[in-house]
């Protein structure tokens, strides 16, 4: 009973699927899908070497501090970092008094309540606070940015394929759309004349749909004067902010690597002992 019904059901599914495939194949041959401008011109992130790479990687604290400086001076005006607390900065090498000062002098204040009138007010940040948002809410953020919403950066290094490499490529990837060619030598505006970047957007082939609302944030060498004296080329700043944002997204990376090595060594020994015990128990027993 089951088998004949089963065979019937099977034939039904197979018939429907084969019909669908043939219909799809006919449609594909008759009207092959047109290549899209994103597909033809989108670039994958370029490789980026960071100290944190690899299973034994550790952060370069100097680099993280430089990256923080870039965040502070270039990005924080528009982009929040609201999963990170000021006190977390002690992990990248700042002392407690330095962290207190950074929080206290942070340009954006923390929302609070006027104790006398009850009206909304702001107060200076404490180390225990998270980084305050530059805008009160999404509407305010869009109003200040031509209807674009600058995303929070706390998890950006994990929220995009390619992570820090994507961030670095994006920041250094702004191009002039006029004359832009892909590696096949096809020129974008000749192939897709309708894909001209709108006036309010900026062409960046590393961005998913090629046109990003953020104007290039790193425009000149020396835009930031690094406290440690490192030469602040655009590439250097982009690398440093990428490293910093990776730390912001994965502050526990070093703990994770360290613990992982210890656990793995323990487990390899334990498994080896387990293997020997298994062989010992089974010795002489044919199986």
């Amino acid at each position, binding site marked *: 009973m089951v088998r004949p019904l089963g065979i019937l059901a099977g034939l039904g599914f197979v018939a429907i699927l084969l019909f669908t495939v043939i219909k799809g194949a006919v449609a594909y041959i008759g009207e092959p899908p047109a290549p899209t401008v994103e597909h033809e011109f989108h670039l994958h992130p370029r490789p980026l070497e960071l100290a944190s790479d690899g299973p034994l990687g550790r952060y370069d604290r100097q680099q993280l501090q430089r990256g923080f400086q870039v965040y502070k001076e270039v990005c924080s005006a528009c982009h929040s970092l609201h999963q990170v607390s000021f*006190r977390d900065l002690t992990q990248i090498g700042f002392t407690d008094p330095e962290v207190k000062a950074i929080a206290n002098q942070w340009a954006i204040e923390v929302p609070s309540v006027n104790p006398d009138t009850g009206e909304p007010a702001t107060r200076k940040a404490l180390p*225990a606070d998270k980084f305050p948002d530059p805008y009160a809410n999404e509407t305010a953020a869009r109003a200040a940015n031509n209807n674009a919403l600058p995303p929070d950066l706390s998890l950006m290094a994990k929220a995009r394929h390619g992570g820090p490499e994507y961030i670095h490529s994006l920041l250094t990837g702004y191009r002039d759309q006029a004359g832009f060619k892909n590696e096949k030598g096809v020129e974008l505006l000749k192939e897709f004349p309708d894909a001209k970047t709108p006036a309010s957007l900026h062409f960046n082939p590393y961005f998913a749909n090629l046109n990003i609302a953020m104007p290039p944030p790193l425009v000149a060498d020396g835009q930031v004067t690094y406290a440690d004296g490192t030469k602040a080329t655009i590439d250097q700043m982009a690398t440093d902010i990428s490293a910093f944002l990776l730390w912001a997204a994965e502050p526990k990376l070093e703990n994770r690597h360290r613990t992982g090595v210890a656990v793995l060594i323990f487990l390899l*020994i*334990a498994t080896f*002992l387990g293997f020997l*015990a298994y062989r*010992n*128990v089974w010795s002489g027993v*044919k199986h």
Partner: protein
Amino acid sequence: MATGEQAAAPHTDLADDGVRRRDFINVAAVSFAGVGAVATLVPLINQMNPSADVLALASIDVDVSAIKEGQAIKTIYRKQPLFIRHLTAKEIAAADAVPLSELRDPQTLAERTKEGHKQWLITMGVCTHLGCVPLGAGEGETRGEFGGYFCPCHGSSYDTAARIRKGPAPKNLEVPEYAFKSDTVVTVGGGKA
């Protein structure tokens, strides 16, 4: 039959099971695994300890410059009420005049304040009986028979040094760890805030 004997081999081996079970390698493997199991317990238990954000609020800075003589403020410390009172000279004298033998929980005012800052009485606002918040710190609140704090729940009365004088509370209001960073700012909790 040769096959039969060979086939029965596992069972004669099993008779040695007692010996095999005490084989060193088996013990070593199981012990090693046991150590691992115990080590696994550590993060499982430690995760219940206060998290970093809770610990960050474990110390606060309070600016006391606005508190006038004779006034007190209530604030929050480790999610509980904290009373900071600016004692008047009369209140200090009254506290010093009490013989220790009369106190359920003998302490001098000097023991409950800091050297050079005797006029600042900083205590938890939690009655040591069953945990209510005593009255007296707020403007207009009754300060009880002894001029300090009064707990409305069961009638515990504290004096001007927040020491228990009458009622069921066993101990004086707790004095938390604190230090004067300057003449106007107190760090309560001793941490790094």
